C-alpha cells in the first residue's frame, strides 16, 4: 500500500461505503447501524442516481453497499445497474435472506461482489445473533449465488461467540465456493449494548491475530489492520483509511468519515445537494480527521503496522479521538495466546 501517496491526499476516495437504507428484516444483536424500520429522509431513487453520478464523476472506483438490508429497497437492483453503467464496481453486503435464483441471475455480471453475513457455522450459533431461520436462508442464498458463479464472501463479525467457530466457517464458506471474511466488532449502533457480552477477550484477540497470520486466504476488509501480524503485512492497510481512502454515505445522504463514526459531529456534508468533491477536499471534518495523530503510540515498535489503530473504537470506548485503539495488542493485552478451538 502506498502510504506516502495516500498521506499526500487523494483526489477522491478509492471506495465509499454506502448504507442504502436503515430498513432491515433482521434484528442482529450487534448491528452497527441499529437497523430496523426504514427511517424518514432516506434518499429517493432520483437522489440516489444523483449521488452515484457525483461519485462516478469523482472517479470513485468502488461502492461498498450495506445497510440495513440493501435488497429491501425496491429500486436496489436498478441502483446497482446504474452504478455499473457508470463504471463503478459494487461490493454488496447483505444478510442473504432475500436472495433467490432470480435475484442471483440478475446479479451475475462483472463488477459485482457479494458478501453474505453469517455469525456462526451452525443454525444454533448464527441464529442466536441474527435471528431464527436466518442460517437456513443464507445457505439457500449461497447456493443460488454459487450456481451463478458470483464471487462471494461469507462475512463474520468476530465476537466471543463466532470466534470458536472460525475454522468451521472457513470450511462452510469453501463448500459454497466462497471465502471467509472476518470483520471487527465495533461498539456502534446496537453493538454498544452488546459490547460487553459479545466482544472477544484479550486472550482471544491475541490468538485471533495469530490465526489470521496462518490463514492468509481469509480476508478482513482491513478492519483488523491494527491486529495484523507480520505475515499479513503485504495484504492491506497499516493505518485507518477514513477520509484518506474511504468515507461513508448514509441512507439519508450524509457523508461521514466511516460507517462506524456516523455521529452528528462527524457529518461532513450531504448528497446530492452538496458537491461530493468539495466535501472530500475541503470539509473541515475530513481535514481534521486527516491530521489526527496518535502521539502516544509513536514510540511503539508496532506503530508502523497500525498507526494507533481504529479511531472509531477509541471514540466509542473513550469518547474522544486521538487516543490509542483500546484493543491495541501491545498496551492492552499482555496474556499469552490460546489456540483452543481455533487451529
Amino acid at each position: 500500500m502506498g502510504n506516502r501517496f495516500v498521506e499526500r491526499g487523494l483526489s477522491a476516495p478509492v471506495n465509499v461505503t454506502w448504507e442504502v437504507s436503515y430498513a432491515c428484516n433482521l434484528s442482529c444483536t450487534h448491528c452497527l447501524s441499529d437497523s430496523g424500520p426504514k427511517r424518514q429522509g432516506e434518499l429517493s431513487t432520483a437522489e440516489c442516481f444523483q449521488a452515484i453520478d457525483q461519485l462516478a464523476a469523482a472517479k470513485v472506483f468502488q461502492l461498498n453497499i450495506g445497510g440495513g438490508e440493501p435488497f429491501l429497497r425496491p429500486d436496489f437492483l436498478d441502483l446497482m445497474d446504474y452504478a455499473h453503467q457508470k463504471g463503478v464496481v459494487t461490493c454488496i453486503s447483505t444478510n442473504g435472506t432475500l436472495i433467490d435464483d432470480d435475484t442471483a441471475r440478475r446479479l451475475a455480471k462483472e463488477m459485482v461482489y457479494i458478501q453474505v453475513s453469517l455469525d456462526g457455522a451452525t443454525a444454533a450459533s448464527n441464529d442466536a445473533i441474527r435471528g431464527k431461520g436466518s442460517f437456513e436462508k443464507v445457505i439457500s442464498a449461497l447456493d443460488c449465488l454459487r450456481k451463478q458463479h458470483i464471487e462471494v464472501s461469507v462475512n463474520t463479525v468476530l465476537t466471543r461467540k463466532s470466534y470458536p467457530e472460525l475454522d468451521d466457517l472457513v470450511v462452510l464458506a469453501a463448500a459454497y465456493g466462497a471465502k471467509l471474511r472476518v470483520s471487527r466488532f465495533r461498539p456502534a449502533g446496537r453493538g454498544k449494548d452488546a459490547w460487553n457480552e459479545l466482544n472477544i477477550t484479550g486472550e482471544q484477540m491475541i490468538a485471533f491475530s495469530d490465526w489470521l497470520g496462518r490463514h492468509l486466504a481469509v480476508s478482513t476488509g482491513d478492519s483488523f489492520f491494527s491486529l495484523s501480524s507480520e505475515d499479513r503485512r503485504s495484504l492491506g492497510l497499516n493505518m485507518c483509511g477514513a477520509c484518506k481512502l474511504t468515507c461513508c454515505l448514509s441512507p439519508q445522504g450524509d457523508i461521514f468519515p466511516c460507517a462506524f463514526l456516523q455521529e452528528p459531529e462527524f457529518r461532513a456534508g450531504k448528497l446530492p445537494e452538496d458537491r461530493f468533491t468539495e466535501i472530500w477536499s475541503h470539509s473541515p471534518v475530513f481535514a481534521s480527521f486527516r491530521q489526527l495523530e496518535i502521539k502516544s503510540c509513536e514510540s511503539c515498535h508496532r506503530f508502523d503496522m497500525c498507526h494507533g489503530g481504529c479511531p472509531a473504537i477509541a471514540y466509542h470506548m473513550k469518547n474522544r479521538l486521538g487516543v490509542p485503539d483500546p484493543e491495541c495488542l501491545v498496551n492492552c493485552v499482555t496474556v499469552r495466546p490460546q489456540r483452543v478451538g481455533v487451529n
Partner: protein
Amino acid sequence: MDSSQVYVLNSGVQVRRENFGLLFYNYHGLRLYFVPIGDLIDSDFFDGIQTVGSLVEVLHSRKNQPKQWIRARIEQILQLITEKGLIHGESIC
C-alpha cells in the same frame, strides 16, 4: 516498443490521475497500484487514442527534454504497468 501502438486498460482495470501520478484499481482482487510518475502520462492516454509516438512528441514540446530520454522513460513505465497486468498494447493500423 512500436511508436504507433496505443495502450488500453485490461478488463476490470480503472485508472485515475493523482498528484503523485497514476492510481490503478484492478477489480480482479480489488487491488490498488500506485505509479509515481508525476504528470508524465495522463489517465486518458489509456483510452487507446493517443499513440506512444504522439505522447513522446507532446512531452518533448512541453518539457523541452530530449526525445530519446522521454521515449526511454515512457517505455519503461508502460512496460512496468503492462507487467503488472493492468494494460496492454494494441496496434491501430
